[in-house]
């Protein structure tokens, strides 16, 4: 009994930081519609800044002062990020901003590495609260008790601010219709900045508060962001009490998981999330999402048309060059281009469902990594030859997509995105924790191609045929009646339904098709590398694909593979440098600000301006 209560108390204490980060994320999303992927980074910064401040500020006052100051400083850093990075891209197509926030993650990671170094920092213990108290004989750290008391106060202050003050009223109004708030004389720009300050300060506060329990390290940003998304989704977007409730549930669950089912701690959280969303699609205390009703931005979608003769000739020439690559370049280039082609197929499959179907998935790596793991498992446990494994990989990924798609498509918009993320994490945690079968962190190795394909050049041609074929097939589907139905479902689901299109089924098929293609890419990947590790299933991998799609241009047909080639190429070059994340992050932010249409979209615009390409109006 004592242990039971002690564990609940530990869970409640852990919930504090999680709640603060989650409520900050939720606030920012509500008002600005930006899904701030970088929120975990602000949490990490809070821990580091707090650590440094605690080194110079002495005693109990210094300790608590450092925590408050860390929150303020991180809030100010958030404001700088908002003004420099996000303000220029608010008018870009919806969700484009999240690419910018991903750039911010990379920049902050390297800046933290530069300033605080690679070693994990052990957080100082709180002066005056270093001991434990005994509850029914079980030791509970005094600091945990302090956290349990502090968190409701923060939650109450936040609740008061949002529901009882003028600023809070404006925030809630802007969450519903920000254009109207502007038309009533409220300066939206500063409201956005203010909310960003508050949200980031909360994340920073959370990071600093957990110092005595967890310290500071460079992996904090990604390790918390998954849990934060789960909390926000379970609690309900925009609901503060919901965020608190969900943070408590998840934290308590984690503590018990560690004790009673250490093999399944990570899986548990996502299982709970899926169950909650099956019954309450908008979270425990959330309200139906009505995003995008007002304040839709960006240019209208263009109709897509078959490529003209000039483009066809260019593409053919490019393909010929690519096909002849092994004849005029070395082994290194052949292997690199194999990687790039595989990544392009993966990106093109996400681009297909995102661009044509409007289905924004945060967890597409589930199918890439899933296909790869499927192939690797067949090879390892059933001695399946490569040829068969390459067929089984897309089939298994497709089957997974049928199931996952069925669940995820019950919700829409940001909830859909979060659900896909949860499934991605679920598969990742399975691969990571089910060590007996998947090898856990050590992965599965010795997955080599059949003898005839073991030569790099031969494997290059194998990948060439499947990747180029897959990309062309995806493109063909966009031009087929199925593609028309997808775009109809994307642009106006109701209208499409009224015309007799079963939009949910169309989206389900599209989701599955994208999953199959990603699985094929995964299968090709595992045989080219000879091994597979859980990081191919990671959220970071899904984000890679997402960035690539937006960088390439969502509203263009070629965006997926062009972005993929650009990203893999640049990354391969940049990773030779020590601070490559900083460079890549800045590059991403730069591209986002300069070319909100993505690479292909911006090139098309430029072509139209100098008269090389026809605009849709000219064509009429």
């Amino acid at each position, binding site marked *: 009994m004592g242990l039971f209560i002690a564990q609940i108390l530990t869970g409640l204490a852990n919930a504090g930081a999680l709640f603060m980060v989650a409520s900050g994320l939720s606030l920012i999303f509500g008002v600005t519609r930006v899904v701030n992927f970088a929120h975990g980074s602000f949490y990490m910064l809070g821990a580091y800044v707090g650590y440094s401040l605690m080194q110079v500020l002495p005693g109990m006052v210094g300790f608590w002062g450092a925590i408050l100051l860390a929150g303020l400083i991180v809030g100010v850093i958030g404001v700088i990020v908002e003004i420099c990075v996000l303000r220029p891209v608010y008018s870009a197509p919806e969700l484009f901003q999240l690419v910018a926030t991903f750039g911010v993650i990379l920049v902050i990671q390297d800046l933290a590495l530069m300033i605080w170094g690679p070693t994990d920092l052990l957080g100082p213990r709180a002066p005056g609260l270093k001991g434990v108290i005994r509850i029914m004989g079980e030791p509970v750290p005094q600091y945990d008790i302090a956290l349990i008391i502090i968190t409701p106060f923060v939650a109450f202050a936040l609740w008061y601010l949002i529901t009882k003050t003028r600023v809070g009223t404006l925030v809630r109004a802007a969450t*519903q219709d920000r254009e109207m708030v502007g038309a009533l*004389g409220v300066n939206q720009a500063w409201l956005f900045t203010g909310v960003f300050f508050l949200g980031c300060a909360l994340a920073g506060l959370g990071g600093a508060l957990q110092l005595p329990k967890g310290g500071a390290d460079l992996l904090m940003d990604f390790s918390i962001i998954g849990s934060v998304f789960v909390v926000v989704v379970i609690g309900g977007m925009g609901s503060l009490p919901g965020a608190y409730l969900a943070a408590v549930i998840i934290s308590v669950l984690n503590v018990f998981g560690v004790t009673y089912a250490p093999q399944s701690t990570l899986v548990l959280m996502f299982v709970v999330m899926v169950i909650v969303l099956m019954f309450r699609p908008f979270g425990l205390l959330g309200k139906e999402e009505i995003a995008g009703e007002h304040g839709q931005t960006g240019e209208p979608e263009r109709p897509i048309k078959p490529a003209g003769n000039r483009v066809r000739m260019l593409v053919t020439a490019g393909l010929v060059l690519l096909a002849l690559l092994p004849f005029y370049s070395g082994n290194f280039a052949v292997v690199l281009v194999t990687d790039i082609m595989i990544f392009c197929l993966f990106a093109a499959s996400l681009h297909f469902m995102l661009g044509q179907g409007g289905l924004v998935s945060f967890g597409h790596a589930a199918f890439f990594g899933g296909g790869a793991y499927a192939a690797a498992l067949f090879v390892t446990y059933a001695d399946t030859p490569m040829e068969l494994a390459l067929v089984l990989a897309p089939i298994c990924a497709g089957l997974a997509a049928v199931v996952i798609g069925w669940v995820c498509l019950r919700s829409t918009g940001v909830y859909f995105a979060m659900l896909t993320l949860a499934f991605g994490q679920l598969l990742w945690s399975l691969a990571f924790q089910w060590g007996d079968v998947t090898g856990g962190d050590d992965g599965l190795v010795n997955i080599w191609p059949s003898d005839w394909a073991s030569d790099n050049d031969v494997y290059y041609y194998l990948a060439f045929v499947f990747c180029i074929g897959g990309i062309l097939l995806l493109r063909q589907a966009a031009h087929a009646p199925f593609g028309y139905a997808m775009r109809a479902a994307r642009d106006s689901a109701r209208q499409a339904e009224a015309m007799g299109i079963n939009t949910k089924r169309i989206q389900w098929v599209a989701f599955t098709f994208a999953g199959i293609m990603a699985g094929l890419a995964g299968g090709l990947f595992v045989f080219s590398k000879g091994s597979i590790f859980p990081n191919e299933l990671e959220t970071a991998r899904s984000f890679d694909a997402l960035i690539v799609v937006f960088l390439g241009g969502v509203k263009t047909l070629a965006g997926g593979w062009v972005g993929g080639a650009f990203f893999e190429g640049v990354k391969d070059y940049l990773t030779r440098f020590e601070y490559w994340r900083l460079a890549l992050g800045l590059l991403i932010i730069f591209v986002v600000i300069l070319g909100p249409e993505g690479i292909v979209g911006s090139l098309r615009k430029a072509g139209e301006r100098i008269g090389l390409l026809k605009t849709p109006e000219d064509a009429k």
Partner: protein
Amino acid sequence: MLEVNGVNSFYGKAQVLNDLNFDVASGTVVALLGRNGAGKTTTMKSIMQLVRPRKGKIIYQGQDITGWPSHKVARNGLGYVPEERRIFTQLTVLENLEVGRQPPRDGCTTWTEDMVFDLFPNLAERRHNRGKALSGGEQQMLTIARTLMGNPAFILLDEPSEGIAPVIVEQMARVILQLKDEGLTVLLSEQNLHFAQAVADAVVIIEHGTQKFAGSLASLQSQPEIRDQYLSV
């Protein structure tokens, strides 16, 4: 007080307004008439800079406000009441009014909650209800009340009689005349000529984004062919 000078507005590449030219004199009520899709709402949004005119100018009290951010336009005394009501459904009536509140402005009435409740007694009873619980007519009243809380000198009313019960339409007409007596200038858009006749001093008619008529109500009444051609009576 307000001049619309050669305004051209676009959605993407589709031109919606074509060289609009009209004035609204201080203290008058002007009705902007036209059928569905004629460009009335876009004209309103162009004045508020919610849609940026690509050509032409909006001059308000002698100042060129073209290209200003909307909140600055509003803070200069232009109050906007949108067509689809757009009240904040999750907020209470009082909170909706709070969002509209702006500091007092020289030469304008400084509105308080009690004053707008005098104007719209139905709202007073519902002050703690959320926006989503209000009827269509009450929502329409709330949008006007919310805009009044910004103490405007000039108010843009986009289709105030649309989709509400006839008895409330009458109430709307009385309110508009009351606001005129308070010294407010009003530009309202309408499809309903009868409503416009009840309140307006002057009329502007647009069709397919092009201005077809601008003049006093009396001069429109002496030209029934214009009325029959451009308005569905």
